[in-house]
């Protein structure tokens, strides 16, 4: 608070604070959380079913039509949810430029990892790996 500031306390407060855009973040976090319940449980069940299986079994599994669909859905939802959650944690413990830098890093990181996972899944699913040529 600057003593030279002639504005009233109300004028300083208006336009600041919550109830502006928090609802979308909160709702997106919930939606992605709900979507992740079946997706992650499917993934865990699939991993259990494939414990100790070799590369041929892995590619056979990824090439089933529903697997890349669910895997890419999982990747997008997972990294979207991670970006939203990490943002909340960073906002609570970091301030000023560090907060901004870490949020940008987390969001860029989640974005590129979602793309990388999606491309890798498609490469296996569409059979462009060197093993089976």
């Amino acid at each position, binding site marked *: 608070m600057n003593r030279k500031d002639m504005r009233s306390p109300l004028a300083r407060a208006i336009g600041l604070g919550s109830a502006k855009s928090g609802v979308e973040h909160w709702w997106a976090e919930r939606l992605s959380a709900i979507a992740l319940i079946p997706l992650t449980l499917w993934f865990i069940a699939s991993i259990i079913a494939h414990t100790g299986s070799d590369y041929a079994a892995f590619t056979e599994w990824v090439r089933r039509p529903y697997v890349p669909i669910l*895997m890419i859905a999982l990747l997008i939802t997972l990294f979207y949810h991670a970006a939203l959650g990490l943002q909340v944690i960073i906002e609570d413990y970091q301030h000023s430029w560090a907060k901004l830098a870490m949020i940008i890093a987390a969001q860029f990181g989640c974005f590129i990892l979602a793309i990388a996972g999606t491309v890798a899944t498609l490469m296996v699913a569409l059979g462009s790996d060197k093993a089976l040529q």
Partner: protein
Amino acid sequence: MARGTERPLASPSSQNRERVLPVSPNIQIYSPQLTSVLSFTHRVTGVLLSLAAVGLVAWLIAGAVGPDAYAAVQGAISTWIGQIVLFVFTFAFFMHLCGGVRHLVWDTVHAFELRQVYLGGWLAVAASIVLTIITWVVAYS
């Protein structure tokens, strides 16, 4: 205006009144309770699962690169360190899942009574332990 000078809160000197505003007690003051510990656990497991997601992408990329890279990642996972990390990730997943379900229940404005909050908390801990053990027993059988 002097910066960071310590003044007793009782004497509101107009010079640096705003510098020494009292801060509300936080985790360094409160003794741990199930509610606060699980709240913090939800955040820690969330960060851990973000790291697990990086591992998932590494596993998929290895699968796309070829059988040698895939075998290398599978080999790293099957070492005892890899198995411990995977076990921690499994438990973190079920803790975060159960904690998330608790949050979704609260979002519908249910189970806010103190008894229900504690019951839900212990249920989440018990369910996470049981589900982690079931997962590993089924995976190894």
